[in-house]
């Protein structure tokens, strides 16, 4: 398998008359964190869903570890934390982790060990044996992250990971993302919180109305005297004016 975890080439997606994604291309290298930013409806989630095979691109090529998402061996190496997660609500947090671990065909001992570590990591020790229907939004967000990490993925997708978290939760989430990066995994995430994206990303992709506005390292994108927020606003406003 190729050493490049993710390569997206000229991907397009249309829903009826709406062109949701128009020719997006980027690459994610090993151990790299890539942040995708854009206004609501820019095509961030659609892009991630196409990469994961939840949607089929109309045009373009997506390669994961030199193969495609249809390859089970590729999916074995991927973690995904969807936005606003919905689980089997009558299962407990621990049961969901066991369920996901079993989908990855991990053995029972490994699942138990990993579940305990992840419950500890996301700070759900007291709630682990409660059914998910009793969880708050922030708690669901945390169990969502835990399930995405159960297989120790080489490539992790996080869709709005900071959404619904309190400030302490956000700090914790950033620490966790950086610790996953330290392990050598690649991470693709999208967020509206630009300061967080700037703080933890190696590369940033800016999209608006399905179009790729800018793609590069934080240094390439953000001049020394500006913030990512300044750059983002000027790019989106310029695109809207077209």
């Amino acid at each position, binding site marked *: 398998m190729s050493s490049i975890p993710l390569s997206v080439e000229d991907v397009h997606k249309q829903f009826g008359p709406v062109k949701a994604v128009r020719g997006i291309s980027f690459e994610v290298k090993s151990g790299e964190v890539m942040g995708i930013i854009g206004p609501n409806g820019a095509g961030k989630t659609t892009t991630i869903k196409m990469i*994961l*095979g939840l*949607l089929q691109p109309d045009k373009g090529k997506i390669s994961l570890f030199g193969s495609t998402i249809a390859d089970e061996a590729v999916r074995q190496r991927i973690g995904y934390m969807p936005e606003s997660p*919905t689980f*089997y609500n009558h299962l407990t947090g621990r*049961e969901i982790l066991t*369920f996901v671990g079993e989908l990855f065909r991990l053995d029972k001992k490994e699942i138990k060990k990993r579940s305990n570590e992840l419950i500890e990591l996301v700070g759900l020790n007291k709630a682990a044996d409660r059914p998910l229907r009793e969880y708050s939004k922030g708690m669901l967000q945390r169990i969502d992250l835990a*399930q995405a990490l159960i297989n120790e993925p080489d490539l992790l997708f996080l869709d709005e990971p900071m959404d619904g978290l309190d400030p302490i939760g956000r700090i914790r989430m950033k620490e966790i993302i950086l610790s996953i990066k330290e392990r050598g995994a690649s991470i693709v995430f999208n967020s509206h919180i630009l300061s967080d994206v700037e703080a933890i990303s190696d590369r940033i992709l800016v999209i608006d109305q399905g179009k790729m506005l800018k793609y590069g390292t934080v240094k390439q994108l953000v001049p020394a005297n500006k913030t990512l927020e300044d750059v983002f606003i000027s790019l989106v406003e310029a695109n809207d004016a077209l």
Partner: protein
Amino acid sequence: MRFDFSPYLVIARSTFREIIRERLLYGILLVATLVTASSFFMATISFDQSSRVLENVGLASIQLFTVFIMIFVTTNSVYKDLERRVLYLLFPKPISRSEYVIGKYFGLLMVLATTLLILGGMYILALIGFDRTIITPVFSVLCYTFLEVGLVIGIAQLFASFTAPLNASLYTIGLYIIGHALPTLKQFAERNSGAATQHLLDVCYYILPNFEKFDFKPAALYRLPVPGQQVFWAIFYGVIYICVVVYLTILVMRKREV
């Protein structure tokens, strides 16, 4: 290469657990139990054929409630997976869409077995104190009911994979009613209709599910022997039809974007 059952089992187990913990299911089961229990009351006030009344009303209510409970449970469970985006959690994982559909179907069969065990089990237990001679025929009817409702679940799962739960339930109920009326309709058409209508009904007869093939209740009630060959063909027909319906659901799910 060794066949790996584990993805099917994982999906089946979680489907079963999720449904069995729904409080609503217990409410429906309670009503079903009460209606079935009323057959004992009817039997005691009937003139002389108390056992027959008990069998007829008791079994009919078990069958009917099981069909409706399972249609409701199936369409709602598939709807939750599709509309509440549980599939976002499942499909990026290393399981195929066919493993998901088949696993889900097995999970629903586990719920069916539990429902029949509760309703049928209580009924049989009550029969012990009433008339032990009808226990064996009742048990065999419950086995055929399992096969019949197994097919109903497959059809409900197929409809629920591409339409809203209410529509899926109505289509399944419609097909269930037509499936029971098929032999009668065919006979009626043979006697009273023109060649075109007869031809159309012939096509429907062979394409639509014929639920009458699983109806051994009259034979059981009147203690008539059922030829082994007839039982074999009923089981064969049911299993083949279930395989076709589940395969169609897999095709729908493979095409579906989530």
